[in-house]
């Protein structure tokens, strides 16, 4: 996504090395994706669903979205 848009920066964060970040973002399982400190996506999702959730607050104000139970 970062590669497709210069407005997007993507960090792959090794959670065990940076417990401060893991705590700050309440990382209880991986992968966990945090977008602009607003959207949290836990687990892997199909591409369409992932992008829809990741971009959700960029078009409307939604606080936190979680994926359906897998």
């Amino acid at each position, binding site marked *: 996504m*970062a590669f497709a848009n210069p*407005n997007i920066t*993507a*960090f*792959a964060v090794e*959670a065990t090395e940076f417990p401060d970040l893991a705590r700050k973002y309440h990382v209880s399982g991986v992968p966990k994706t*945090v977008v602009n400190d607003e959207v949290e996506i836990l687990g892997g999702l199909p591409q369409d669903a992932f992008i829809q959730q990741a971009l959700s607050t960029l078009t409307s104000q939604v606080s936190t979205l979680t994926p359906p139970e897998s």
Partner: protein
Amino acid sequence: MPLLSPADQDKLRESFAEMTRSVRLLFFTQTLDCETCPETRQILDELPALSDRVAVEDVNFVLDKDKAQQYAIDRVPAIAVLGLDESSQVHDSRIRFLGAPAGYEFISLVQAILLVGGRESILTEENRQRVAAVDKPVTMQVFTTPT
């Protein structure tokens, strides 16, 4: 003793051979107080040997604060993935890795190198357009563990 087995080296050599653009990995590191910097160094050192299109450039995180700021790096070890065009102009992919790229993270790093190196994106055309339409700054953090 290399970290990558001869078989893995061959596989990577084969994948990297398809790259059409060169990639530079900016490695932000520091000598003291960085437990996984030596491990990251060891992992990264194995890559340029596998392809002329992959280079690693060290950035001293303590001394080169400007560069760290330019690439939004606030901790080490960190890697910024940069692409180089035909005229050696640098293009920042804005893909970063924080922490040693071991285990699954190594696979992600290889994928990032291949993408920036010219491989086609896995995004569908529809999703590519959705992503391209984002017109404000977005920071995505993907938390992972090595296993």
